[in-house]
C-alpha cells in the first residue's frame, strides 16, 4: 500500500511542488486571517507565468544532459526587453514586430550558445556564461540606460484577465501544454530525452543529436526573449536587471518541479507547481513580516528541504 503510493509519487515527482504550493497558500491565507486568498492566487498566476515561460526553456536545456544549463537567460531578458521596446517605440502598430524582434534576438543568442558549445567544445555552463557577458554588453549599449515605455495597448494586454484568469497565465499554460506535447509526440522531443540519458547512445541509435541540441538552446533563448518583451510590457518598460532573478530561479524551479538534473527526464507540470511554490513562499514570508535576510534564509532551507525529501536524483546504476 505504502509502497504503491511511493511508486506513484516516484513516477510523478512534480506532485511535491503542488503539495508544497497548496500548503504554502494555506499558511499564507491563515496568516492574513483568511482574507485575500483569491488575490494571492491571481498574483501568483501572473508572476509565475513569467517564471514558467523561461523555466520551460531551461527545463529543455537541462533535460539534454549533465552540464547543460542556460546561464544566458538573464542577459537575453535584458536584451530582448530593450529590443522589444525600441522596436515598438510606444506605437501600437509595432507590437507584433516588437515581439517578433525580441523572440528573434533570443533565438539568435540560443543559436550562438550552441555554436560555442559545438565548435569550441566548451562546457555549456561556460559557453552560456561567456555569451551572457557579451549579450549583456549589447543590451547596455542598446538601452543606453533609457527606459522606453511600452505601447499602452501592450501594457494593457499583459495585465488583462480573461474570465478572471490573467492572460499571461493562459499564455504560459498554453506554452507548457505545447512543450509537454512536443516531448511526448515529436521526434525532437524524444531526442531531447534520449540525449539527456546518453549522447553517445542517442547518436548510435541514429537520432539527430546535434539538431536537437541546437533547437533546444534556440528554444530556451526564444522563450527568454518572449518573456523579456512581456516583462517590459508588464513593468512599464525595459531595464537591465529585469532578468537577474531568473538565473537561479529557473534552475530551482526546474529541479523542484521534478525534472532530472542528470538529464533525460523532463517534468512539465512540475514547472507550474514549482513556479507557484516559489512565488508563494516569498508571499508567505512577506505576509508574516520576516526580515529580508530571514526570508532568503528560509527560502534556501526550503529549496534544500524539498530536494532532500523529494528527490534522490542520480540514476540507480
Amino acid at each position, binding site marked *: 500500500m505504502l509502497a504503491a503510493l511511493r511508486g506513484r509519487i516516484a513516477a510523478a515527482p512534480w506532485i511535491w511542488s503542488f503539495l508544497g504550493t497548496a500548503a504554502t497558500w494555506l499558511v499564507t491565507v491563515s496568516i492574513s486571517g483568511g482574507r485575500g486568498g483569491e488575490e494571492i492566487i491571481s498574483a501568483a498566476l501572473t508572476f509565475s507565468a513569467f517564471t514558467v515561460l523561461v523555466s520551460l526553456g531551461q527545463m529543455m536545456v537541462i533535460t539534454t544532459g549533465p552540464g547543460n544549463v542556460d546561464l544566458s537567460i538573464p542577459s537575453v531578458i535584458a536584451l530582448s526587453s530593450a529590443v522589444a521596446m525600441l522596436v515598438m517605440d510606444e506605437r501600437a502598430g509595432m507590437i507584433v514586430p516588437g515581439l517578433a524582434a525580441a523572440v528573434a534576438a533570443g533565438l539568435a543568442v540560443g543559436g550562438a550558445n550552441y555554436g560555442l558549445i559545438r565548435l569550441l567544445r566548451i562546457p555549456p555552463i561556460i559557453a552560456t556564461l561567456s555569451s551572457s557577458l557579451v549579450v549583456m554588453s549589447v543590451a547596455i549599449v542598446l538601452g543606453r540606460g533609457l527606459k522606453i515605455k511600452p505601447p499602452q495597448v501592450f501594457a494593457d494586454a499583459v495585465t488583462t484577465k480573461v474570465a478572471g484568469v490573467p492572460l499571461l497565465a493562459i499564455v504560459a499554460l498554453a506554452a507548457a501544454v505545447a512543450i509537454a506535447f512536443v516531448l511526448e509526440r*515529436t521526434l525532437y522531443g524524444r531526442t531531447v530525452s534520449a540525449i539527456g540519458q546518453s549522447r553517445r547512445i542517442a547518436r548510435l541509435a541514429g537520432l539527430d543529436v546535434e539538431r536537437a541540441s541546437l533547437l533546444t538552446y534556440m528554444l530556451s533563448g526564444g522563450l527568454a526573449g518572449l518573456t523579456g518583451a512581456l516583462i517590459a510590457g508588464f513593468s512599464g518598460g525595459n531595464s537591465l536587471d529585469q532578468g537577474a532573478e531568473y538565473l537561479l530561479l529557473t534552475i530551482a524551479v526546474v529541479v523542484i518541479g521534478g525534472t532530472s538534473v542528470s538529464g533525460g527526464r523532463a517534468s512539465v507540470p512540475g514547472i507550474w507547481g514549482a513556479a507557484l511554490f516559489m512565488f508563494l513562499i516569498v508571499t508567505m514570508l512577506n505576509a508574516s513580516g520576516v526580515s529580508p535576510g530571514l526570508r532568503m534564509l528560509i527560502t534556501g532551507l526550503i529549496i534544500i528541504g524539498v530536494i532532500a525529501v523529494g528527490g534522490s536524483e542520480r540514476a540507480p546504476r
Partner: protein
Amino acid sequence: MTAAGGGAAPAAPPAGAAAEVFVDLRGIAKSFGAIRALRPVDVVVRRGECLGLVGHNGAGKSTLMNILSGALSASAGTLAIAGEDLTGRYDVRGAHRAGVRCVFQELSLCPNLSIAENARIAHPALHGFGWRRRAAALMQAALDGIFPGHGLGMGDVVGSLSIGRRQMVEIARAFTETEERARLVILDEPTSSLDATAADQLVAAARRFAAAGGSTVVISHKINEILAVADRIVVMKDGAVVDDRPRAAFTREGIVDAMGHAVERARSVRASTATAETMVEVPASRRDGLTFRAARGEIIGLAGLAGHGQTDLLLAVQARRRGTRVAGDVALVPGDRSTDGVFPLWSIERNMSARWLPHLRRGGLIDLGRERAEAGAWRERLALKTPDLRNPILSLSGGNQQKALFARALGAPARIILMDDPMRGVDIGTKQDVYAMIATEAAAGRTFLWYTTEMDELFHCDRTYVFHDGSIVAELAAAELSETAVVQASFKDHSVTDHAVKDPA
C-alpha cells in the same frame, strides 16, 4: 579434487593445503524486494583451487559473487573465510582484509588516473613518501607476470587505453599484494575483451596462482575457457546450485545440459543469401589493406583481436564518413549495453522504438498506437520476457535487454544492420534465437556487418574480414574459415614470438 586438478593442469597444489577450505558459504540467500535472486546455496572454495562458475544470465552468479566480495550483504546464511565466521560483519573492506579480490564485468578502474594511481585506489597501504614508485613497481610486476609483453607504461592514463588493455590492468591489479595479500581472486567474465593471446596468458596465470596456494573463482560464458582453467565446476540455475563436481566429471555438453538449455546445434556452413548488389564499400585505410565490401543479403563477419579497428569501421559506416559508400539506411546493434545501448530511464517500448521514430510519424507526430503495436509484435517475435513493455528497461535481465536492442535495429526499415559484438554476456538460449533471426533477415535481403569476439559466431557468416591494427589484412570465405586461419591472419605482420621473447617468467 586432486584428480580434477591434475586433469586440468599438471601443477598440483601443495600437499596438505589441498583440502583446506578457504571460503565457506552456507545457506546464503538474497532477495531484492519480492524477487529471490538467490535461494539458500552452499558453496566452498578451497585453497589452491580454481573454481569455475557457470549459469545463464540471472542464474544468481553475480549476486553470489557480489556477496562474496562484500558489495552486497546476504539476506540469510553464514559466511566464513579461512575458518573465521564473518557473518554480519563482512563488507568491502572486510573482503579486502581477508584477501578477497574481485574483477568485475564492468570495468572498475578510474579512467582519469594512471595505471599506478589506480593501484593506490585498491591499496590503502600505498601512501606516504615514495608511494608512487612503489605503486608503479607493484603494477609493473603484476602485469609482467600475467601478461608478458603487455607494453604498458605505469604512467599511462587508463582512459587512453583500449578496452582490452584496461581489462589487463584491472586483472593485474586484482593480483597485486601489499600488506594485504591476494588469497581469492574472483574473475567475472575476465576475457570478454581480451584477445586470444592475453586470454591464454590469463589462464596460465590463474593456474600458477592456484599452484602457489591461491584460490580463484572464474565466471564465464565461454564454456571452453571454464573447462581449460577450472579444477571444479559449480553450475547455477534460477538462483540455486544445480551441480557441483570436479572438472573431470564434466563434458561441454554436460555443463550446457545442467545449465538448462539444449546443446548448441552442430555447426554447418550456411547457404549464402548474398546477391550481386553492393550495399557497403569502405576503401582500405592503408595501402596494404583490403577494401571492405558487403552485398545485399550478405552476412559479413569482422574478426581479429579486440580493438583492432572493427568497431571503428562500423562507426564509420554508421556516420557515413567520407570515402565510405553506403547504399541504404543503417541501424546498429551495440554490444556494450550500458555505454552504447540502453536508455536507462526509458521503458522497454521506448528503448525499442528509438530507432523507428522517424518512421512512426504521421503528419510530423509520433503515432503512439503504432509504436505500441510494433513493440508488441517484437516482444512476440523475440520471446521477450516481460509482463509489460512499459516497464523500465533495467527491469530486464541483460540478455533480454539485448533482445530489445536487436528489436530497435531490426524494427527500423534499415537495409544494413551493424552489430558491434552484440552477444557479450548473453546466454546461449538467446544467442540461438538471434542467430536464426539474423539468417532469416539476411534471406529477406538485409545486409549484416557483424563484429564478434566469439569464433563460433563467424560460422554464421558468409565471409569474414580479419582486422589487424586498424586495417583489413585477410578475407576468408565461409569454406576457408577456421580458428587457425583467423589467428594466423590476426598476427600476420606481428610475429607471435615477439611476445614470447620479452617473457620474464
